[in-house]
């Protein structure tokens, strides 16, 4: 009986391999269409697919807006976005990349969990001929950076000067009177986390602020509440909290509630790196004081545009990756926060597909180059987006 079953299994498997024959004539992924050097008007690039592992189950408006902006970038050149759920850890991302390659994507955009996972991703993508780019992260390890930057399939990506941002926001808090600061940051080992730590340390040294404690890796609201309550109990002298980074959804409301429960809202200055959709109300009642962010929409959008340009055969920079540093925007008022909410976290990306196609896809405009992108970054502000989209977005 066992032999009969084994034979049936073998024959069925052999027959079923024929099922895909007709479908697989052209699924060698990653071979980008390569038009001749300049765009031909009236034509479009070949269809392509971009894979994006992301926390798609999150309903946090910031997380959703990231998908909106990546999608706009992909669709601007006629591509299809392939989303896969990820918990954004190194293990999960490596598996996601592998699955996406099997699904025949031509490019992958992702946020790396660590530098050390990048060589594995590079090997997989290079073997499959799939381009990839990164968002939100630089590569701190010199050896890995050299290896990845010399890879044919690494298109580049955006990152921010996290150290400078953390330095600036800490100095701002100091100028607002903070002398005893507690910090919440993303898990250690994450490049941004380490850089933000450095920035905070530098500012603390210059300003004389006392850094009381830093907690890392909070991802759920219950843990955030416990952390703030621990800070309140352990450090009665605390007069400032800096959210240097967190994947906890609704982090700011959670912290504000914890402070409010202890009658400390407004007495303890709160600052945050990465904008939050609830900022406006807390700016209004003066319980929230400064936010640096805005990169969470422009970074993934431009990182994906860089990737799309490579995939469709019109890379912004030939023969090497294009690394772009995007700026953090500063918000200190309710009106700015309201504009952010309206124009950054709605259904409209910060650049629409038409705007991207016209100004950032080299296939359609051969004048686009590195300087174009840098000008885009320099002119990017909340007011800029509000002005461009005032007729598109209903307040």
């Amino acid at each position, binding site marked *: *009986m*066992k032999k009969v*079953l*084994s034979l*049936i*299994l073998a024959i*069925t*498997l052999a027959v*079923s*391999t*024929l*099922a*895909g*024959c007709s*479908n*697989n004539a052209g*699924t060698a992924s990653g071979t980008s269409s390569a038009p001749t050097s300049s765009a031909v008007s009236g034509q479009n690039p070949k269809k392509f697919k971009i894979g994006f592992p992301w926390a*798609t*189950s999150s309903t946090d408006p910031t997380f959703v807006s990231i998908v909106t902006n990546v999608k706009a970038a992909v669709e601007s050149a006629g591509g299809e976005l*392939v989303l*896969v*759920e*990820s*918990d954004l*850890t*190194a*293990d*999960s991302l*490596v*598996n996601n990349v*592998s*699955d996406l*390659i*099997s*699904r*025949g994507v031509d490019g992958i955009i992702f946020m790396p*969990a*660590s*530098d*050390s*996972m990048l*060589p*594995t991703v590079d*090997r997989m993508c290079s073997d*499959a001929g799939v381009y990839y780019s990164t968002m939100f992260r630089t590569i701190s*390890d010199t*050896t*890995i950076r050299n*290896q990845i930057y010399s890879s044919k399939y690494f298109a580049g990506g955006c990152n921010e000067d996290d150290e400078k941002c953390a330095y600036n926001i800490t100095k701002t808090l100091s100028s607002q009177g903070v002398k005893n600061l507690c910090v919440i940051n*993303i*898990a*250690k*080992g*994450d490049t941004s*986390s380490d850089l933000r730590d450095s920035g905070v340390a530098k500012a603390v040294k210059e300003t004389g602020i006392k850094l009381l404690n830093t907690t*890392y*890796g909070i991802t759920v609201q219950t843990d955030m509440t416990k952390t703030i309550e621990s800070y309140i109990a352990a450090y009665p002298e605390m007069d400032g909290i800096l959210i240097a980074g967190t994947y906890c959804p609704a982090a700011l409301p959670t912290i504000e509630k914890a402070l409010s429960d202890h009658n400390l809202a407004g007495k303890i200055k709160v600052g945050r790196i990465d904008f939050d959709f609830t900022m406006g109300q807390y700016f209004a009642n003066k319980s929230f004081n400064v936010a640096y962010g805005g990169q969470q929409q422009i970074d993934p959008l431009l990182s994906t545009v860089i990737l799309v340009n490579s995939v469709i055969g019109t890379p912004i920079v030939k023969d090497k990756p294009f690394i772009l540093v995007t700026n953090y925007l500063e918000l200190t008022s309710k009106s700015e926060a309201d504009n952010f909410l309206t124009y950054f976290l709605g259904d409209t990306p910060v650049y629409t597909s038409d705007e991207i196609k016209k100004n950032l896809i080299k296939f359609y405009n051969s004048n686009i180059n590195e300087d174009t992108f840098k000008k885009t970054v320099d002119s990017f502000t909340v007011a800029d987006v509000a002005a461009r989209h005032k007729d598109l977005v209903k307040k």
Partner: protein
Amino acid sequence: MVAQFIGKNKLNMKETVRNYFSFIGLLIVTVVFEFLTEGNLLQPRNLMNIFNNFFSIGLGAMGVVFLMSLGELDLSVGAIAGLSAALASYAGQINLALILPVAILTGLAIGLLNGVMIARLRVESFIGTLAMSFVVRGITTWLLNGSVGIPVSMRVFDQNSVKIFVFVALLVALFLLFEFSAYGKQCRSVGASADAARQSGVKVEKVRTMAFVISGLMCGLVGFFSLVRTCTASSKTGNAFEFDVLLAVLFGGMPLTGGWPVKFRAAILGSIAMSVMKNGMSLMGIDGLTQQIVEGVILIAIVVIAFDRKSANVIK
């Protein structure tokens, strides 16, 4: 007479399904997903994806076979893999040659603790290993507080040829140990009836402890290979791995009650089927949450079909 014939054939069919559940399950899963993915499932590139998924689950499942033949469970396998990866990554900062031994020794140590707790202290394996998983996860999170990397040169161990060699070597060794050695037979005899085994001269506590040690050792290896795949150990390494392993062995036809019906092939066939199913669902674009629902439903269905109520003395 006809009724007797039909009745006898019905009984044979039921027994056949139960006995060859693993083969039938693998066949169904493979064929279904091959068609649903329009032939992408068995493409060479994707077969390596399936192998990479199957490799870790298979290692864990091979270790768990010994435990489950005793009628025990180990819900700490994922946590052990995570801690093994964490300690190995720190050891790698001292000397790269320490990474593998530290990973293995960590697995062995936790396995031994589990074994002593369950065999000597008579803690119920479900509760004991669940508690151990909380402890070990907590230690891992405290140690790492994020993630730690190892040099990318260690990726040499992530090559398919290395993994295939390691897997086949362990498969042969553990298969021989389980199916043909005295120890393997002792495991099943204890699973069938611990009292009868004890009266036959089997050192039941030693057999149980050893089974947990073997499971721990395999988890240490899983931790090592997870570490060299990403060159990163994080507090989430091995997350939910215990459920993947449990689902794999059950899908392979492992009886929950242990004893003589346990076959080593359950670990292998079940792991392959699980990997094919997970990969197939990913290729179809089914999101992670829906996959969890599917896996949960399948787990319930398997237990309903494969659980042999007649031989169950105690509901664990």
